[in-house]
């Protein structure tokens, strides 16, 4: 059988090299003209722990995992009970196990699974310097019909620094694996790839967020490492200097958020990236950004919560704190990227929003989109770049930093400008920025800070709306679950259900009018998210009435939502 998409998991521990093999396979598939996606799951060990590379290769652009895997290659079964739930198999899926690791554990078996044993370990021993992951790569590529030359080319690139011997043994491994295919039957093969038109990119969401920040104009970043956000920083650290920017590693998150406030006050668009625990430490100063109207972008790559929680796994759980986590009445903006690739657009757009509205924007990415890699068409140029309304100051005239304007945005002067000196103020203040406790000043400044956010024209970027104009069911979701929901909606439509996807990028302020319009006519609204509390649904309820019957569909991580679950819910009613 030939499929438009095949999902493959490779699992192994202690130096088996599954992550490297996964990336080579993905990139080789890209070379061959396929699209694809690779996620990962890890044990608690720093090195040598059990890990799995989770791939999906496809003839079409794809950013959602399938419900399960068609092929699972296991070098060993170490601690499999810890993450078997992250390795669901598709019906009729094939497990390829190494007899060296013993029998396939009972908990991996069910009536529908097929099992083949391939002695990866023994085969690699027969090759001088041979490695199990290369043998498996050769086998998998051959099984799914991936061009052997593309594979060899990627391995050559990947191992370019390792010398000829390593290369030779890797090739021998690939060849041995390819030959071992004989006898393995009924394997899903990929259709021929479509002809490539333009460039393709292989990118993770975290790298995409870094690039989006720079494209949005960011030239300063201050941050403190934290899983799963560190990759953004590790990408920015060497790349910011190339474009004249700087990244500073700080003593903690209190320092990093305040440093970017300083950088931004100086006129340089600034960003930091963190995860839940770090965001919690930043809220006091995000409030200062709101009150002093200093633009900043905070990327929160969400992980399992609460508290230290599950640092290496994904969950959409920081909406509450991102939206409502500041003390006082502190309107600001919260956005969320809709896919791995969209981390680029949403981050760039968020810089634009922060600069245009002179406020704090919190970007809710998560471990799934942040640390997964995808093959996408090279993104089109995005016009957005952070543009601040800069004040025309006149030396000798009093400059009103917090002038009450129609749109609530007051032109900002940058240090070094004559006649533009002002004090960025966290105390309530009048139009000049001087502290005031008067009700009139407080009310007018509160209203202005609210107005500039509420009345801003967010354009069409607030969400992705797709599907049937006469839909009966709307699947309403936000952030990283968008692509899973899209696949569910597509499957439902393929079964004749009139369905529509509304995947929201603008979390706060709630774009109530646009949402009403996007949901017009449906009799059911299914709100899909990955958390325990139904945080987005509550947030929406707080701000608007949703049309039709509202159905909450959410569950916590660490296992990502799958299209099949959502589809089952759509069909169950």
């Amino acid at each position, binding site marked *: 059988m030939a499929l438009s998409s095949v999902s493959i998991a490779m699992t192994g*521990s*202690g*130096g*088996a*090299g*599954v*992550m*490297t*093999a996964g990336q080579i396979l993905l990139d080789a598939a890209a070379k061959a003209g396929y699209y694809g996606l690779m996620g990962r799951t*890890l044990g*608690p*060990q*720093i*090195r*040598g*722990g*059990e*890990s799995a590379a989770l791939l999906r290769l496809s003839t079409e652009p794809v950013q959602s995992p399938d419900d399960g895997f068609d092929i699972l290659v296991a070098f*060993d079964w*170490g*601690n499999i009970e810890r993450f078997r739930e992250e390795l669901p198999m598709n019906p009729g899926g094939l497990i390829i196990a190494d007899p060296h690791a013993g029998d396939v554990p009972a908990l991996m078996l069910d009536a529908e699974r097929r099992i083949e044993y391939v002695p990866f370990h023994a085969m690699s021993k027969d090759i*001088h*310097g041979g*490695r199990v*992951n290369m043998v498996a790569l050769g086998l998998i590529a051959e099984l799914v019909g991936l061009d052997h030359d593309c594979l060899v080319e990627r391995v050559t690139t990947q191992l370019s620094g390792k010398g000829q011997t*390593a290369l030779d043994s890797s090739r021998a491994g690939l060849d041995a694996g390819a030959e071992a295919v004989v006898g393995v039957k009924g394997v899903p093969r990929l259709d021929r790839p479509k002809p490539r038109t333009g460039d393709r990119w292989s990118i993770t969401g975290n790298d995409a967020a870094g690039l989006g920040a720079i494209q949005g104009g960011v030239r300063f970043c201050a941050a403190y*490492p*934290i*899983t*799963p956000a*560190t990759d953004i920083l590790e990408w920015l650290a060497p790349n910011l200097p190339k474009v004249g920017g700087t990244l500073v590693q700080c003593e903690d998150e209190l320092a990093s958020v305040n440093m970017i406030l300083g950088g931004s006050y100086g006129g340089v668009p600034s960003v930091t990236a963190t995860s839940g625990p770090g965001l919690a430490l930043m809220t006091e100063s995000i409030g200062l950004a709101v009150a002093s109207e200093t633009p900043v972008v905070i990327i929160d790559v969400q992980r399992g919560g609460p508290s*230290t929680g599950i*640092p*290496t796994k994904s969950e959409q759980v920081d909406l509450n704190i991102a939206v409502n986590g500041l003390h006082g009445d502190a309107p600001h903006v919260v956005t969320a990227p809709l896919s791995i690739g969209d981390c680029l657009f949403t981050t760039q757009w968020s810089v634009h929003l922060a600069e245009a509205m002179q406020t704090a924007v919190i970007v809710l990415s998560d471990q799934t989109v942040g640390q997964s890699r995808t093959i996408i068409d090279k993104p089109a140029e995005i016009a957005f770049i952070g543009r601040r309304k800069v004040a025309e100051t006149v030396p000798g005239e009093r400059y009103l930093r917090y002038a009450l304007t129609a749109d609530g945005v007051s032109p900002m002067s940058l240090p070094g400008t004559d006649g533009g000196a002002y004090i960025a103020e966290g105390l309530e203040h009048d139009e000049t920025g001087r502290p005031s406790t008067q009700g009139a000043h407080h009310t007018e400044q509160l209203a202005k800070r609210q107005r500039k956010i509420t009345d801003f024209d967010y354009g069409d970027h607030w969400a992705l709306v797709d599907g049937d104009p006469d839909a009966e069911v709307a699947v309403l979701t936000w952030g990283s679950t968008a692509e899973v929901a899209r696949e569910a909606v597509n499957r439902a439509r393929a079964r004749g259900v009139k369905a529509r996807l509304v995947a929201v990028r603008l979390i706060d302020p709630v774009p109530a009018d646009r949402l009403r319009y996007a949901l017009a006519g449906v009799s059911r609204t299914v709100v899909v998210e990955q958390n325990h509390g139904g945080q987005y649904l509550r947030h929406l309820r707080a701000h608007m009435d949703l049309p039709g019957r509202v159905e909450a569909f959410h569950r916590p991580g660490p296992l990502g939502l799958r299209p099949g679950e959502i589809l089952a819910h759509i069909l169950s009613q």
Partner: protein
Amino acid sequence: MDSLEEFIAHAVALEEDSAVRFDDMADSLDVHQNHEVTDLFRKMAHYSRLHLAEAQKLAEGMTLPHIKPWEYKWPDKEPPETPGMDATHYLMTPHHALVMALDSEKRGHDFYAALAATHENPRIRELAQEFAEEEAEHVALLQAMLLRYPAPPPDWDEDMDPPVSVD
């Protein structure tokens, strides 16, 4: 080392510390799915415990002095048969494990041999000589085992996957 009791106390501590350390190392490799080496280390811990039992048997009827951990008279920073924790590696092979074990047995042998050669107390010299001979047997055994486990290729510790960030 002045008294027989003190000597026995050292012998007990030497084996006990070695057993605990081999077990710790076995745990560590078990967590990292290196089962071959885990099994070897468990075996070594088992042998240390056997010797520990022998030393404890000798101590029957004696009141051993309490010696503070840092006041034992070891030739080096740790008891001689205690392998260095820092010599383990998650990808280590049985060859490495055996070399470690061999080193520790050799150090044990040298420790006892030195006492046997120089101590003024004849009973201590006699026991030390016995222990040294026993250690020499272990050394020979391990050397024989090593022949079955040749050194792995130089890139044995190469891991294609980078380490990961877990918090």
